[in-house]
């Protein structure tokens, strides 16, 4: 009889302990990198401005700018700095160009999960998020901060990004960043640092 009581007490204590740990646990993890915001110089140059932000973070002594990126990738003898949009792959090429190929950027046709973005920033690598509006408009922003909070068993995730449209910093929940609830654009593609 005493054994049974001990067993029951043991089980109850175990269950209570396990749930207490998860329910009352609080942790907050912030990954922040000091990216310098860049304002896009022309209507369609968000991608080039983001390439400059990321490239200069990785290689701060670079003298190249969004103008050089556009000229390198899109320029023609007749128009050195055309006001044209760029793809996610061209953004990666542009970021490589900013670093004089001292670093390598790549792109992927899908969004990073929060954990992937969080890990990238933890490795001091900026993440460029390609975002699309349902009208077909694309826009790119630079993620420079991620926050992961676990409170009472619930996880909250946030991203901070610089919008090259105005150079301002914005914060929003990761899910609202992805589905376009916050800024109207859905996060669909990623340009990231390989090394």
């Amino acid at each position, binding site marked *: 009889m005493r054994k049974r009581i001990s067993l029951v007490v043991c*089980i109850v204590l*175990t*269950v209570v*302990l396990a*749930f207490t*740990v*998860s329910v009352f646990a609080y942790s*907050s993890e912030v990954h922040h990198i000091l990216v310098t915001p860049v304002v*896009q110089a022309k*209507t*369609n140059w*968000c*991608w*080039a401005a983001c390439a400059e932000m990321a490239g200069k973070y990785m290689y701060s002594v670079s003298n190249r700018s969004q103008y050089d990126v556009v000229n390198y990738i899109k320029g023609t003898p007749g128009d050195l700095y055309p*006001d*044209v*949009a*760029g*793809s*996610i*792959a061209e*953004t990666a090429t542009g970021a490589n160009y900013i670093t004089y190929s001292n670093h390598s950027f790549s792109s992927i046709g899908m*969004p990073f*999960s*929060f*954990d992937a973005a969080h890990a990238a920033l933890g490795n001091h690598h900026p993440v460029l998020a*390609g975002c*699309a509006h*349902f*009208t*077909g*408009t*694309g*826009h790119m922003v630079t993620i420079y901060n991620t*926050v992961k*909070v*676990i*409170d009472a*068993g*619930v*996880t909250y995730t*946030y991203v901070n990004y610089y919008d090259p*449209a105005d150079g*301002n*910093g*914005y*914060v*929003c*929940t990761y*899910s*609202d*960043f*992805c589905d376009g609830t*916050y*800024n*109207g*654009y*859905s*996060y*669909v593609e990623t340009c990231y640092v390989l090394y």
Partner: protein
Amino acid sequence: MFKKVCVIALLLVLMTNVSANAMDSFEPSTVFDQSEFEVIKEFAVFPGLSETTTFRYIDGYKRYSLNDPCVLLQPDGPSIKSSLGTYSWLLITSQSNEVKVVNKNGAWTASGYSYGLSQMAKIGVLQKDRIINLIQNEGIDGNVSEMYFFEAPMYFLNALLVIVNDEEYVIPFSIRSDFTGLEDGKLYKRTEFSVIMRDHFPVQEESDEIMYGGRAEQLTLDRLQEKQEVMSSDSDTRIVSVSLIIVAALLSLVATFVLKRRKVKPDN
């Protein structure tokens, strides 16, 4: 004669005051709504973000999305009003943040915030008198029937839509007025506004890829959804799973321990 002049003067003063009061108190619920603002404030919380605990909300306004933003580029197209979608709340903090509160599945929830105020907040909301003066100066006071703030981020634009006698007027507050060619805070007739917009946002070349920075070809919603399916699921479920695994492991240990003891010391 003197009495007549006095009466006329008095009437004029009264009429002027009535007119001014009518404009001053013109705060349609489609833009400002103090009672709803007081309610919305309660939802503007960001769990775990310490800097937001000091947020003090001093003002707020509603901002509509557009179902078809392309109407802004069509001088002879459908009315802008016909394209208005749902609205969200933008709350202004004393620290100059603009907090967005959205309605998701019938529940208001904080979505995010900016560092610094938009032009719309600086001029359009915090200086309501300026808008009222602008409308009065255009000689369209007294007949304003509807007002809406709307956003069109793909055109670097926030704007106030004013409807007077079924005519649409637009007061832009651009994110980049150098891109839109519009003057912030100026009242434009709809046609004039759309002609300027159309000239500043020519259609880009077609591309199979998503092009960042300008107007590309129409992306199908299917394609967007396909990409978004890759997004990570919330890690809440992972926490619950970890807890359950811990409980299960501990229970197994206890059971193993008890069984072993029984084997070593069998009951008499």
